[in-house]
C-alpha cells in the first residue's frame, strides 16, 4: 500500500511538474510572437515607442541632464530687447517718436530688427582717425550738451554687406552701396566697421531717430538717397536706430581695406 501510495504521489507530482513548465514557456513564446509581429511595423515610430515604455521610469536622469544642458544656452533668451538707459529728455523724445510712428514703436522695431541687440555702423578711415582716435572720444557720434548721437543699423545687415563685398581682401564700394541703398562713393577707400553689443553698453539709450537729431539730412524727394526719413528705416530701407552715448571702449572696431 505504501509503495502504491508513494508511486501515486510521485506520479502526480511529476505530472503536475510537467504540466506547469510548458505553461511557463508558452508565455514568453507568446510575447516573442507578439514582438515579432511588431517588427514589420517598427517603421511606425508610434509603435516603437511603447516597446521602450519602461525607459520613462528613468525620467529623473534626463531631468537632471536637462537643466545642465540649457544653462549654457540660456544667455540667448536672456537677450531681451531694451531701450537701455535713457534720461528724461531722451525718454520724452522717444515717447514722441513712438506716438508719431504708432502703432509701431522702438520696442517693436528692436524686436523685429535688432533681436540680438547688436548694432553696427561704418565710417571712412580718415574721419575715424580725425574725430574718434585723435580726439580720444569717449562716445561715438555727434555730441552736444544732451548727449552723443549715433545712427546704427543691425550688425547682421552691415556685416553681410561688407562680407559680400570682399574680393581678394578688399571691399567693393559698389556692393556695399547697393546692399545698404547708399551711394558707392560713401564707401570708397579704407573703412572702419564699428559693432556695439547694446547689452554690454549699459549707459547707452536707444530710440527711433527723429528729424531734430544731430546729423539728420532730410530727404527732399523720393530719389534722394543717404537722407533721413522718419520711421526707423533709412532711405535705402535699412533698419536704423538712434543710439545715444554709445561708448567707444565697448565697441569692436574692424578695419576694412
Amino acid at each position, binding site marked *: 500500500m505504501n509503495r502504491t501510495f508513494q508511486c501515486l504521489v510521485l506520479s502526480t507530482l511529476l505530472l503536475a511538474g510537467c504540466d506547469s513548465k510548458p505553461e511557463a514557456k508558452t508565455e514568453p513564446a507568446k510575447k516573442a510572437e507578439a514582438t515579432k509581429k511588431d517588427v514589420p511595423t517598427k517603421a511606425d515610430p508610434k509603435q516603437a515607442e511603447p516597446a521602450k515604455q519602461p525607459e520613462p521610469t528613468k525620467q529623473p536622469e534626463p531631468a537632471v541632464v536637462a537643466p545642465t544642458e540649457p544653462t549654457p544656452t540660456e544667455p540667448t533668451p536672456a537677450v531681451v530687447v531694451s531701450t537701455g538707459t535713457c534720461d528724461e529728455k531722451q525718454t520724452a523724445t522717444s515717447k514722441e517718436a513712438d506716438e508719431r510712428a504708432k502703432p509701431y514703436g522702438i520696442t517693436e522695431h528692436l524686436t523685429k530688427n535688432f533681436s540680438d541687440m547688436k548694432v553696427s555702423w561704418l*565710417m571712412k578711415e580718415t574721419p575715424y582717425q580725425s574725430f574718434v582716435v585723435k*580726439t580720444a572720444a569717449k562716445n561715438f557720434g555727434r555730441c552736444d550738451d544732451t548727449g552723443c548721437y549715433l*545712427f*546704427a543699423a543691425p550688425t547682421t545687415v552691415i556685416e553681410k554687406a561688407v562680407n559680400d563685398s570682399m574680393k581678394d581682401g578688399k571691399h567693393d564700394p559698389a556692393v*556695399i552701396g547697393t546692399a545698404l541703398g547708399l551711394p558707392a562713393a*560713401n564707401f570708397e577707400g579704407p573703412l572702419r566697421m564699428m559693432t556695439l553689443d547694446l547689452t554690454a553698453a549699459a549707459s547707452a539709450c536707444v530710440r527711433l531717430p527723429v528729424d531734430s537729431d544731430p*546729423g539728420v539730412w532730410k530727404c527732399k524727394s523720393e530719389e534722394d538717397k*543717404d537722407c533721413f526719413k522718419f520711421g526707423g528705416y*533709412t532711405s535705402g530701407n535699412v533698419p536704423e536706430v538712434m543710439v545715444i552715448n554709445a561708448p567707444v571702449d565697448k565697441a569692436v572696431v574692424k578695419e576694412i581695406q
Partner: protein
Amino acid sequence: MSEEVLHQSPLMYRVLRESSGRLVIEVVVGGIAMYAVRVRLDDEEAESWAREGAAFSDRLAKAITADPKLGGRAYEA
C-alpha cells in the same frame, strides 16, 4: 601742405586753416555710413567765423550736415 586745426567740435566737425591761409570747415556727414566733406569758407563766412567763433561754425556745420553738397560747394575730405 600742412594745415592748422583752429577748432575741433564734439559735433564732429573742425575748422582748419590751410597752408594758403584759407579757412576750411570739415564736417562728418551721413548716418549709418559716415564720411567727411569740406567746404572752403568765403570771405563773408570767414568774417563771421572771426566774429562769432564756434557759434557761427556750429550753424555752418549743421547746414552742411543737413545738405552735405551745400549747393555744390562741398568736396570730399
